[in-house]
Every structure is written in C-alpha cells, then in structure tokens.
C-alpha cells in the first residue's frame, strides 16, 4: 500500500517538518499536511487519550486522527527513548489508532540516537541511500537555523513595530522564499540577509524601551500557539520583546554534534543549571533552569515558564526555580496550561508581571539612561 505521510503541527516549526519531507523528496501528493489545530482537535484527542496524559499528547493525537481521516497512514514525528512521557507518545498513539480501527505506521525520531535517526529519515525518504539522506539532512539543519532565526526576529520586531502587522507580513514572505530555495549555498546566503530584511522593512519605534523576557518550558507548549494561548503575541502587544529557548536543533544540528569545538545550545543551558539540577531530568527541565541563569547574566528582565499540567521535567524545574530567583534575582512567572481556554487569568498574570518587571527595572537602573536596544545586542546565539 502506498504510504501517505503526515507530521505533527508544531507551532512555527511545523515548517521544519514540512522542510524535512520536502528535502527527503517525498512526493507532494503523498504528504498530508496537518491543519492548524483548534479546540475541536484538542477535544478529539482528549476523547481518545488516557485522562492522566499531558496535553501535548492529546493535541498531537487529535491532529493525527484528523489527518488519518483525510487519508494518512504513516505518522512521522519526534519521540524515542527520552526520559519523559514523550517517549511513549509514539507507541501509545499507535495502540490507540489501532483500537480505532486504523492501520498506521509510526516513525519516531530521537536525537539521543543519531544513527537510528538517520535510518528513520532514510526509511521515510523517497528511496534514498544513506549518502543522499545525509545530504538532505544538511539542507534540513541549514533551514532549521533560518527558521529559528526568523522566529526570534519576529518576536523582537513585533514588540516594537509601529505599523501593526508589518512583522507578520515580512515573516510570511521570508518563509515563502525559504521554501522556494533548495541549494544549501543559497539558503546560507539568504540566511545572512534575513536580519537585514527585517531591519529594512519593519519600522520600529526608536524611543521604545521594551522589556526582554525569555520563555522557557516544555517544548511543545512553548511552540504551539493553541496551547500557549498566543503568548508571544500577547507579550509583543504589551510592548515586550521575547524569545523562546527551545528548538528542534537538538535533532537536526549534526555539525554541532560532530564538532568537538562547538557546544550545542542545550548543553550550554544544562551546564548553567548544574548547581541546581545536577543530572538530566528529562524533557527540557534542566534547560529551563539553565536558560534562566544565562539570560540573567545577559541582563534580561524576566522569564515566563510555561508547561502542560502534570509535566514531570518542568515540575522538577519549577521546584528549584524559586531558589534560583532568590539567588540571582530573576523573576520567573509560572504558567500551567491544560485544556482550558479561559484567557483572562492568563492575561492578568502577564500584565501584572510586566508591571512588576517595569518597576523593578526602573529601580535597578536608578536613573541611568536606557541602553540602546538592537537586534545585535538582543541575539545571543
């Protein structure tokens, strides 16, 4: 039977999955693109999930069922042997879809096992040999850099734009362009231009004195707008510039994995977290703590910590974060999301948090003038 492949909706990095399948030359007609999830997707997922499972599982299951109904019979997603419940997403979803009467193949790639990952990518591809797969992976990681960069740029420029909606328009053009180029050299060349394009096309308020807020937490919730209730846009609308500290580069950044002189981004965070959490505690727990410390050192104003109800790694992080806050003076706002759509409490907390950060910053500055804010000083990659 011909396989019709689908992939998870993953916030802005949905495009990465799309890029992976494109580079592996899976024919267009054999790809089932997931539609933007909504409340009904979540309800559909919850209906067929164990009650105690975390929200990302429910949402991805809902999205899968929608795609299966549209003809997909092969799910390509991330998973594997990680040390949180994400590792049982694939197997559990396979059993559930089986019970529902579908025959679906699951391919779960895992960054802990680079060789298995290569094999999995090869099995998804259009009869590639290992060399072709490697070449495709090269294009993928290069595009991953550009996607991450664009996302960070959006959350920087949107917080200060004068004409509302300008940043989103520019971003859309960039995403479209990124998908139309296939040569690694050209992608790399375009990558260098991306910050310039934003600078030229988006008019920002030169007088703006935005707060800098980092977003830490469970990767799926940090990235998927339905689950984080449009957190980035909310912050941007409140005149704050923000960035997330998670990325799927963990999976794709092969050069950093192989090069002994380059430290992968998440390893930097983990090292910072070591005085508080010594060992890898699954998911992004350790990274959340590490990023808080790193961003304080870089002079950021605060953090928003967001995770799905009952997420074990982030709960571990949450339990040490108050002592981190005490030691280094970095306020962290914890937000737990589940199936609720009540946004008032969410908005109230954000507004109050920002009010508090503004007062705190003014007090710390003690009359000193504001620093000039620019993309170069904001970006720490």
């Amino acid at each position: 039977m011909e396989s019709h492949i689908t992939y998870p909706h993953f916030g802005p990095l949905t495009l990465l999955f799309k890029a992976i399948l494109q580079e592996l030359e899976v024919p267009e007609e054999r790809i089932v693109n997931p539609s933007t999830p909504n409340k009904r997707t979540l309800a559909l997922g919850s209906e067929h999930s164990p009650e105690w499972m975390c929200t990302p599982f429910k949402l991805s299951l809902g999205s899968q069922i929608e795609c299966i109904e549209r003809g997909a019979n092969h799910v390509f997603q991330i998973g594997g042997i990680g040390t949180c419940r994400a590792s049982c997403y694939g197997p559990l979803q396979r059993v559930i879809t089986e019970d529902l009467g579908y025959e679906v193949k699951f391919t779960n790639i895992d960054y802990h096992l680079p060789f298995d990952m290569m094999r999995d990518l090869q099995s998804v591809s259009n009869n590639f040999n290992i060399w072709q797969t490697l070449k495709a992976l090269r294009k993928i990681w290069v595009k991953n850099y550009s996607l991450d960069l664009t996302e960070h740029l959006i959350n920087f420029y949107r917080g200060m734009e004068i004409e509302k909606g300008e940043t989103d328009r520019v971003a859309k053009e960039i995403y479209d362009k990124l998908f139309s180029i296939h040569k690694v050299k050209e992608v790399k060349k375009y990558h260098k231009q991306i910050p310039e394009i934003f600078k030229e096309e988006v008019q920002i308020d030169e007088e703006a004195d935005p707060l800098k807020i980092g977003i830490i937490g469970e990767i799926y919730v940090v990235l998927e707008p339905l689950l984080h209730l449009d957190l980035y846009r909310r912050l941007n609308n409140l005149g704050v510039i923000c960035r997330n500290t998670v990325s799927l580069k963990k999976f794709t950044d092969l050069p950093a994995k192989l090069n002994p002189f380059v430290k992968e981004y998440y390893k930097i965070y983990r090292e910072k977290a070591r005085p508080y959490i010594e060992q890898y505690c699954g998911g992004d727990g350790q990274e959340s703590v590490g990023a808080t410390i790193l961003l304080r050192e870089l002079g950021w104003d605060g953090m928003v910590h967001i995770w799905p109800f009952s997420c074990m790694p982030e709960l571990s992080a949450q339990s040490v974060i108050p002592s981190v806050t005490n030691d280094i003076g970095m306020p962290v706002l914890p937000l737990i999301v589940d199936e609720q759509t009540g946004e008032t409490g969410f908005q109230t907390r954000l507004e109050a948090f920002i009010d508090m950060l503004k007062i705190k910053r003014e007090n710390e500055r003690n009359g000193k003038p504001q620093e000039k804010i620019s993309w170069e000083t904001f970006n720490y990659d």
Partner: protein
Amino acid sequence: MTENCDCPKKEGMTSIETLSKEEILESTQEEIALEVSSDKYYLGVDVGSISTNLAIIDSQKNLVESVYIRTEGRPIQSIQQGITLLKEIVGENFQISGVGATGSARQLTGLVVGADVVRNEITAHSLASLNENSEIQTIIEIGGQDSKIIIIRNGLPVDFAMNTVCAAGTGSFLDQQANRLEIPIEEFGDLALKSNNAVAIAGRCTVFAESDMIHKQQLGHSEEDIIRGLSEALVRNYLNNVGKGKEITGPIMFQGGVAANVGIRDALRRSLIKQNKIKHEDDIIVPEHYDVMGAIGVAILVMNKIVKNPEIKTKFVGWQIPDINYQTKGFECKGCPNICEIIEVLMGEKVIARWGSKCGKWDV
C-alpha cells in the same frame, strides 16, 4: 508565527494597558506632592468573579463611599446595581472626575462605565496596599478565584505569585463548602473560632475535601471542628502552593474577600507564627477597607493620570448607567481553523465592542 488564517491582520488584541513610563517613575520615587483640589472625586470599579466593588476617593486618596455586592455571574447587572446603590448615597449630581476599571471583568467593565484607566487587579491591589501602609513587606490576597502573594521590598513590588491550576486555596473553595454545610459564608469564620480542635481535612482539591468532610461528619465530629479544619486546610494550601519558596516577612497586608473571614485570619496568623515567618500577631494587618482595595487602587491610578493631565475629560458614562440596556452575545467565527469565540457587547442597539478574535477581524 504566521498561522494559515486569511483574516486581515490587524492589531491582535483589543486595548490593553500596562504601566506607562510616568507611572513607573512615580512608584519608584517618593510621594509627589499633588495639587490639592478638594472638589474632585474619582471612581474605581472592580468586578471580580465573586464580588463587584465600587469605591469613590477624594483627591487626598481617602475613601469617600464604597459599595460591595456579589457578582453572581452577571457582571453587567452587578455594575448597574452597584452604580444604583452609589447614586442613592451620593446623589445624581455628584461629579466624578475619572473612572478606573479593574478585576477579571475589567475589559467589559471599562466599556460599561466608560473607564479612563483599565488595569489588572494585581497592580491595583499593591498600589492600594502601599497607599494604606508603606511599611509592608508582603501582600497576601485571597479572592474569589485567585489567590496571590506580592512581595514588597523598600516599597516596591519585587516578586509575585498566583494560584496556577485551579481555584483550590481561594474563596470559592470556602464558598463551596459553606454551601454544602448550608452555613452562610458570613458566619463561617466565627464558627471556626469556637473550635479548639481542628479536624484534618485535605486542602488540595475541593472534591477530596468534600469526601473528607463527609467522612468526618459521619464519624461524629462537630461542625465547628470541621470548619476550623477547613480553614487550616485552605491556609496550608495557600502557603504551600502560592507562597511556596517566597520569603514571607511582616508586616503582612492580608486582603481580598477572604480576609473578612476571622477563622482564616486566625489560621493564617497561627500558621505563620508557627513557621517563624512573623513574630507578633499584629504583623498581619487587615486593611480597614480590605474588600474594596482593588477599586481604591484603580481609583488612585485614575487620579494620578488626571492630575498629571488635567486636560483629559473623563469618559464616564454617567449615573444613568443602570437605565441603559447592555447586552452581550457570543458566536463562533468560522473564518479560519482557529474557531475563535467572539463576544459582542451591545449598548441598546449599537455594537460597542467585540473581542475574542485572534486576528482582530471582528474588532470594532
């Protein structure tokens, strides 16, 4: 993030405000001498999940009149009722120079009363508390759906936390149990004080608490003991959930609707003394107007704004608010996969606002 939404992109959400530069400077500086004009009065309206509070202050930040009523899930009606009650006290010709709205229904309230400032309740509360007593180090606030802690150092808020997942450890937890025991919530506190022997009751979840209570009732424990046990459970939940890891020191300002409950006040006091967080009983201060602090806070914010910019004319709709027919309607937008729930507010026949859309397509 570009969602595949074909709606025209406009400003994402409707008017939201945080502190402006001037307000920050003000809160970080010593008290600025304000020009005293005794004939100006400012109204603050705080519509929360459980209660609706209105407060009028004069230009010395003194409370002139206040009204505290229950929201009962009908915010617009309760605002109208509140305004009616105020009108009866101060008279129809009373001049209001500025109006502020706060509380979880602040957006709607802002529209109905015509607010000059719409601000979140946490900021409003800390402002009101600091105005009442500038020495305080901690604000503990337990309201209907929210409970929060604000840590103040040198007169500035430095950290805060709020309840995260559910309404355990808040007023509605007590409300639920009072309902179950068929005791008016007002008598709850006094009953707790009569007991000398608290019964252990689970504080994490109302459902667990309820089964505990049923069990303890059937064993034959007295009502007073169970109520005291409940009060202690709520305080325990608050301190371990909201107050977790926070440096709680005195003087502490205890406010919000639950501060009215003497049983909870007592339990909080004993618990904090036991944990060595405070030394004396007087370290917990319940402000005189604990129930309308949010309204006072937002009235102060309006006053600051208007005193600075005397040219601003208030948007206050007027004392005829109770006579205006306000309506709200909800529908789902089918324009894109987001399926936003849109709320439409009508004043008479006229649509005065819509919100709820992610893309801003429906904003008026």
